[in-house]
């Protein structure tokens, strides 16, 4: 899959139309969809018309006048980028008159352009240079002494790209990219005529402007005006490899543009089916962590966590780990060990870890970080619709009329989907936001929510019930859909429940804090506004009623018939790149791959045959149960691949106590993360750039991850698992991850048609992919629900036990921001920290004033679980009574304060609701002081390893 660098730019975007148009370009007959530009039609016929301001990712603008053509029967020289084709049109692209005009245009451009082509960073990949060549420019009659912009100052404020106005040809591709592709509107063309110049915001630096550093403008720029600093430093790349982003659940496709084994830049792939050529600051720019000096690339072991680390060979580390696991099992029982798979790792790697646990450990004690994020999605959607996954493609949103965003912040958490959504909203779709905070979508540039239900944290289910109540009692349901597609007995039960007065918005107003009239308005809009689609995030799942809420959402979609076609559906916005995949691969203690319960003897038989071992029919321990069992002594060893439970899981002090109680903690990771500080064996992990495999994104899309450089630690992650299984006495013989995928396909009905070869062919595949759907399934539940009839579930609102009191009068809720990713292990090791270098506590001005808190002051945040100290940010985004923080930095200890309350069905922690008190303080919390000491000790134990090596 090695490719050349340039892709063919067809000039203007593709048009979709049932009607086609026949025309002739330079004597060549061509047929294109109605609405296509002459420029694109020519390109499709293999004819390149010179162009500068047009590019196929943006709507044409018609400003450079280079793409002029002659059309028989028409006067003058129309611009081919803005002229749509018509039936029978005869176009000439190369005539003497056109050549003269084009040369004249180029001459003007070049007369105001520095002629430093040989030393320019775009040399070899510059459209201006190409066009000068294409039009045969040989002289510039105006000379270079006239008024020009050659002395304009460079803006290097952004850590990843520079802006050199001297090279700008004011084609406005960047401005349009920022508007159309990204939806941020950070750039403008300032001034008119000769004086016109591109400018971020109010003539600010990029860093001080609204720019979110998505890089769309850099990609669109035809010159070196906007240029990646990495290209300036390293020069133009020479080959590229298509791969998939390892950050969020959007799963953007990228071309890793390389020079040998070095990445020069990441460019979102135009053919990417999830991202359609767009990306965010993380995927495009924040890949430098892969080569960060903190990477640990040699295996290490130690007997106690107070011992210095000792570097050893892979063989020694693996055999030590295996013998420890075997010792623990013989002394404390087969169930005394387990494993954690990672949503950061590939499907193949995740599959192997769960296989190791089930086949080599001989128990089902395997879990994954989805436990703490979307496990309620799996449970709730399976119970109602029959499949533990979202129902749509990202493309589907372009056909939605009403979009409901619940407990998600797409512009920060899932930025590329956020941009798609904003585009659709600008086209006229309506938006309903259900969130305690005023997220950016509520009132952004050219986007405004019709309703913002600013509920109290913890009252989601009350809100979803009241929405359903309005739909049912006002007769807005889609009765025909329900009668045909759903279990009518369950529906009748649910209908009686939801119609009860206690579920009306008026009755619940007091609890939710949302005015009843607003709930009624939102319910009517969703039910009657055309295609209604629901998108939701961790603000739905991370609650004591997370699973209930997911089922409430499914009820709402079924009752209104908003499921089973494009433009509608129930769409979980998955947090991590491969959280969907890690769940699909059987990472849960009760399920084999493909969401089949371990007690199902037929499925078990299938795996027993293939794996050649007897499998345990009882469910294993979930992560929180493992931790409890560690404290009571019945669980003593764990293999953790690519997870950092000491930072990401709730009630940190409980987690670290459990880790401390274990006898063998094996951590496989890129860095010595917080969990690894409690480990006895450290196995070097490999980044997504160092291995082959697949990730599955939030739309069930399986995308290839391709190796672009050798594994720094010498082994890809799956190879380490294979070695560990072999040392445990359970042989695994894979030579390449494709063989692991072949095994998955053989054993999982929804994956039957998936293979690396098919992925190469199709680019990506949305499961189910099998005989019925050989190319995959973009939209699910079309004629029938996966479970047969859709099942309505009664969703009683049960207030969380985490209540505010006099001692803890505020509610803390947690979230994330654009530039940092999750526990931050990757993004903190990049320049992304320039946007966010610490976690802060957001607090409403009135709550701050009451406590005498000033902006930027240190405040202590105390809950029933613990205390930490952060600096305050006073903002009206919060509602009074609610405070907010992110958890990207370990020293913040956000999870020291979160409690062990969890979802009733899945034990997904209730991160979104913690009762706290906040007050000004002068020093870090006791936990933070201990944390600092412990981290320093561990750093020393690591440094001793280096000393020994020296």
């Amino acid at each position: 899959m090695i490719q050349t660098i340039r892709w063919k730019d067809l000039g203007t975007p593709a048009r979709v139309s049932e009607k086609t148009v026949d025309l002739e370009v330079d004597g060549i007959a061509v047929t294109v969809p109605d609405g296509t530009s002459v420029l694109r039609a020519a390109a499709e016929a293999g004819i390149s018309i010179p162009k500068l301001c047009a590019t196929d990712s943006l709507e044409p603008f018609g400003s450079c006048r280079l793409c002029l053509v002659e059309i028989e029967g028409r006067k003058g020289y129309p611009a081919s980028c803005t002229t749509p084709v018509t039936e029978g049109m005869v176009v000439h692209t190369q005539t003497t008159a056109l050549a003269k005009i084009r040369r004249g245009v180029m001459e003007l451009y070049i007369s105001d352009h520095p002629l430093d082509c040989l030393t320019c960073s775009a040399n070899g990949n510059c459209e201006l240079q190409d066009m000068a060549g294409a039009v045969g420019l040989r002289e510039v009659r105006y000379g270079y002494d006239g008024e020009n912009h050659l002395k304009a100052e460079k803006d290097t404020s952004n850590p990843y790209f520079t802006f050199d106005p001297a090279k700008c040809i004011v084609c406005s591709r960047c401005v349009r990219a920022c508007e159309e592709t990204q939806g941020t509107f950070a750039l403008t063309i300032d001034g008119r005529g000769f004086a016109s110049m591109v400018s971020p915001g109010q003539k600010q630096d990029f860093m001080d402007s609204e720019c979110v550093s998505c890089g769309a403008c850099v990609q669109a720029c035809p010159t070196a005006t906007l240029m990646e600093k990495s290209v300036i430093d390293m020069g133009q790349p020479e080959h590229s490899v298509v791969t998939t982003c390892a950050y969020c659940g959007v799963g953007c496709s990228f071309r890793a543009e390389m020079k040998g084994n070095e990445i020069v830049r990441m460019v979102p792939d135009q053919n990417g089916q999830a991202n359609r050529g767009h990306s965010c600051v993380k995927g495009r720019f924040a890949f430098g962590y892969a080569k960060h000096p903190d990477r640990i690339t040699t295996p290490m072991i130690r007997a106690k966590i107070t011992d210095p680390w000792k570097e050893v060979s892979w063989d020694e580390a693996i055999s030590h780990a295996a013998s420890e696991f075997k010792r623990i099992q013989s002394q404390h029982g087969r169930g005394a060990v387990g494993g954690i798979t990672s949503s950061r790792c590939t499907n193949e790697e995740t599959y192997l870890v769960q296989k190791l646990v089930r086949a080599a450990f001989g128990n089902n004690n395997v879990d994954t970080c989805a436990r703490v994020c979307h496990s309620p999605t799996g449970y709730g959607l399976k119970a109602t619709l029959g499949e533990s996954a979202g129902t749509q493609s990202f493309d589907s949103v372009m056909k939605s009329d009403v979009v409901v965003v619940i407990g998600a912040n797409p512009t920060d958490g899932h930025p590329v989907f956020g941009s798609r959504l904003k585009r659709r909203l600008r086209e006229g779709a309506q938006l309903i936001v259900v969130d305690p905070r005023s997220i950016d979508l509520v009132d952004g540039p050219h986007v405004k929510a019709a309703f913002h239900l600013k509920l109290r944290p913890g009252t989601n289910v009350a809100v979803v019930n009241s929405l359903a109540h309005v739909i049912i009692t006002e007769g807005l349901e889609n009765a025909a859909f329900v009668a045909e597609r759903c279990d009518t007995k369950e529906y009748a039960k649910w209908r009686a429940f939801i119609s009860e007065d206690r579920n009306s918005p008026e009755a619940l107003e007091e609890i939710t804090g949302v005015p009843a009239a607003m709930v009624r308005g939102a319910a009517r809009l969703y039910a009657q506004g055309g295609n209604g689609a629901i998108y939701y995030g961790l603000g739905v799942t991370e609650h004591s009623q997370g699973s209930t809420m997911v089922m409430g959402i499914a009820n709402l979609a079924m009752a209104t018939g908003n499921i089973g076609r494009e433009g509608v559906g129930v769409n979980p916005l998955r947090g991590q790149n491969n959280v969907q995949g890690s769940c699909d691969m059987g990472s849960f203690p009760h399920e084999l791959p493909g969401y089949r319960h371990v007690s199902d003897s037929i499925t078990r038989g299938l795996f027993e045959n293939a794996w050649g071992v007897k499998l345990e029919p009882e469910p294993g321990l979930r992560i929180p149960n493992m931790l409890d069992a560690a404290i009571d002594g019945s669980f003593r060893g764990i293999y953790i691949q690519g997870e950092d439970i000491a930072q990401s899981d709730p009630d940190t002090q409980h987690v670290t106590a459990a880790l401390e109680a274990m006898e063998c903690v094996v951590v496989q990771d890129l860095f010595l993360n917080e969990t690894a500080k409690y480990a006895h064996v450290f196995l070097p992990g490999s980044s997504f750039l160092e291995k082959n495999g697949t990730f599955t994104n939030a739309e069930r899309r399986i995308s290839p991850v391709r190796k672009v450089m050798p594994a720094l630690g010498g082994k890809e992650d799956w190879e380490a698992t294979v070695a560990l299984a072999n040392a445990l006495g359970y042989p695994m013989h894979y030579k390449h991850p494709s063989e692991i995928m072949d095994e998955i396909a053989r054993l999982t009905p929804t994956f039957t048609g998936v293979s690396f070869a098919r992925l190469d062919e199709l680019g990506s595949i949305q499961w189910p992919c099998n005989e019925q759907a050989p190319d995959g399934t973009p939209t699910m539940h079309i004629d029938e629900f996966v479970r047969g009839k859709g099942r309505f579930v009664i969703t009683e609102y049960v207030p969380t036990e985490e209540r505010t009191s006099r001692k803890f009068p505020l509610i803390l809720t947690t979230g994330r921001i654009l530039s940092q990713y999750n526990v931050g292990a990757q993004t903190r090791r990049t320049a992304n920290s320039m946007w966010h270098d610490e976690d802060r506590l957001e607090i409403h001005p009135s709550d701050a004033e009451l406590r005498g808190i000033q902006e930027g002051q240190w405040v202590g945040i105390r809950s029933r679980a613990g205390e930490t100290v952060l600096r305050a940010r006073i903002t009206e985004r919060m509602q009074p009574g609610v405070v907010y923080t992110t958890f990207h930095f370990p020293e913040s200890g956000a999870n020291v304060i979160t409690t062990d309350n969890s979802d009733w069905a899945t034990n997904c922690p209730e991160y979104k609701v913690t009762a706290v008190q906040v007050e000004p303080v002068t020093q870090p919390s006791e936990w933070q002081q201990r944390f600092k000491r412990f981290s320093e000790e561990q750093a020393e134990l690591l440094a001793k390893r280096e000393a020994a090596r020296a």
Partner: protein
Amino acid sequence: MDIKRLVGMANDIARFYTAEPDHEVALDEIAGHITRFWDPRMRRALADHVAGGGEGLSDLAREAAKRVKLPVGSVL
């Protein structure tokens, strides 16, 4: 296992089913949920606790806990 935690978990599950109009269905659903999702040592600990009076369990949870299937054929 920390029995207080298990009691809390069982009560949380039971609470979800309080709105189920059919008591028998509620009991089966709660017991089924625990059987399907709890590891053997957790189910045994809950059973022992119920045998000893089931302190802290809600009425619904206590009644349902008696229907939780204990592992057979498991070596764990």
